[in-house]
């Protein structure tokens, strides 16, 4: 028996009044994979996520989560999901331990089971030494870790993470990524929204790029980069006001040239060679950088805009 998809959406639509937040998207998430929704704020990622979390009814189209219809079986689906919303939504006046135990109870777990689970999850989230402190007193990174720990209280089959690391410092982000890797290795299917391309590139096997409430591309990070970008990118930076006309002068040095407010990007298979040619044309950037293409470049190519402004 072939495994049914964890999530299957067909022509999925979400409307708020006259605003279409999601305009007919098709998505299939397989068991055990880490699947990403990449896009800028307002692209429809969170609306999609909330429909999958079965906390927001769809306006049109079809949706199955764990093989069930959220409109019919919302509670049964939610019993097997873990959800990390954008806001931590913790009970800040209660302790770390109490937050975990109380949440576990909503999933029908016994007192003994939630006690055990809370201890295990505090270990996992490295919060054991703060177990009996009120959440109020935790740092932002700790609260985020606690929110993730809370979402695991029912050993979910599918974990939904909406912008899991927004607002965290780099160290806290890496620690969270490490925890998510471990979950994935443990067989949990992950669904991640993010407007950080490095996050999606690091964590996701497959992703869709969303823009303006639609899916504009789908594939693995490397597939998307191969399909929509070149192997390397040459970044040229100029002093303010001296960038004008540069894009035209270097246009044929790469397969494609993009001009951003603070730099010019030359897409090419060989960045070093392109840089030599730039110097040969007497174009003098204050700094230059040759790097590999990322999903950021894919997004720029597809939408003409950057992800994070």
């Amino acid at each position, binding site marked *: 028996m072939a495994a049914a998809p964890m999530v299957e959406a067909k022509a999925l639509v979400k409307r708020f009044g006259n605003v279409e937040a999601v305009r007919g998207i098709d998505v299939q998430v397989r068991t055990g994979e880490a699947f990403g929704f990449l896009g800028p704020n307002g692209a429809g990622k969170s609306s999609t996520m909330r429909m999958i979390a079965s906390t927001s009814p769809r306006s049109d189209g079809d949706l199955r989560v764990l093989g069930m219809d959220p409109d019919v079986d919302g509670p049964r689906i939610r019993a097997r*999901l873990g959800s990390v919303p954008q806001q931590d939504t913790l009970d800040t006046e209660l302790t770390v331990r109490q937050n975990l135990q109380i949440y576990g109870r909503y999933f029908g777990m016994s007192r003994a089971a939630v006690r055990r689970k809370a201890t295990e999850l505090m270990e996992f989230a490295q919060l054991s030494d703060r177990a009996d402190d009120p959440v109020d007193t935790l740092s932002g990174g700790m609260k985020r870790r606690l929110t993730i720990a809370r979402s695991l209280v029912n050993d979910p089959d599918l974990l939904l993470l909406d912008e899991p690391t927004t607002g965290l410092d780099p160290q806290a982000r890496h620690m969270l990524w490490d925890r998510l890797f471990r979950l994935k290795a443990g067989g949990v299917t992950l669904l991640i929204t993010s407007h950080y391309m490095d996050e999606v590139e690091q964590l996701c096997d497959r992703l869709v790029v969303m823009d303006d409430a639609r899916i504009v591309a789908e594939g693995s990070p490397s597939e998307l980069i191969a399909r929509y970008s070149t192997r390397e990118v040459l970044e040229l930076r100029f002093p303010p006001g001296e960038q004008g006309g540069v894009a035209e002068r270097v246009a044929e040095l790469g397969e494609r040239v993009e001009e951003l407010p603070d730099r010019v990007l030359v897409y090419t298979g060989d960045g070093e060679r392109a840089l030599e040619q730039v110097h040969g044309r007497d174009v003098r950037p204050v700094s230059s950088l040759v790097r590999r293409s990322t999903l950021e470049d894919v997004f720029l190519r597809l939408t003409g805009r950057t992800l994070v402004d």
Partner: protein
Amino acid sequence: MAGGDVTGGDVTGAATTSVDAGSRATGRVVGSWRAAWLRVEAHWTWYRRYWRSSLYSSGLQPVLFLAAMGLGFGSQVEAGPATGGLAYVQYVAPALLVAGAVQNAIAESSYPVLSGFKWQQDYHAVTATPVTAGQLLGGQVIWIALRVAIASVVYTIVALLFGAWRNAGALLVIPVGVLAAVACGTAIMAVAATTYNEGERFAAIFRFLVMPMILFSGTFFPIEQIPAAVRWLAWISPVWHGTELARGVTLGGLGIWPALGHLAFLGALLGVSAVLARRYFYRRLVV
């Protein structure tokens, strides 16, 4: 869990069978009453930590009122027809229980409920679990009933020391107070669920609705003293209906039909408020 036990058998049966296989999840759906009770458990966990800070508004304030109005001011009031021939402290004690319970419930149903939606947003966390918005509301109502009941018991004991009770009918004042309180509290929850700003309307409700309601609902004097032209305002006050019932069960003098009428009014307020609050909770949490 067997596949297809709910959605199976229909056209999507094939898709519903395989996903449950190999599920590692330990969560399950609990019954509605159980779910509501789990919310009460959560509130209780909070209360065990913070009950001292709520002591004044929920417990001490009505006791202070009873001391000041019942004993202090009451010593200047002669027992007469208006008090049914009773000492003023006995006249005012049941009414103060009701007034205190209603105030307590309204306070607990305003900003704290709005916070669940807006600031702390923990309601959104709860409805991401198998617990539904309706069960969340149910738990909130039961919790407020319990909290008001606890405060009322404390008040009743203190009032006993003040010699404010004439008979065991005093014990019936507690459920009357809880009913009036929960009816008003549920109405305010419906308001909280439709409040999107910082809750400025609650301040207005406390000042222009709750305070006059407490003062002019027969708490301190019979509503017959209110000019006939505006006396109807007392008739539509839930506090008055609660106060009439509360005096009736401990001081007597209330016929069965008026008693049923007061009960019906409070029951109807609770029923209508619960239906509206449920609708607004869903509208706010399931969008």
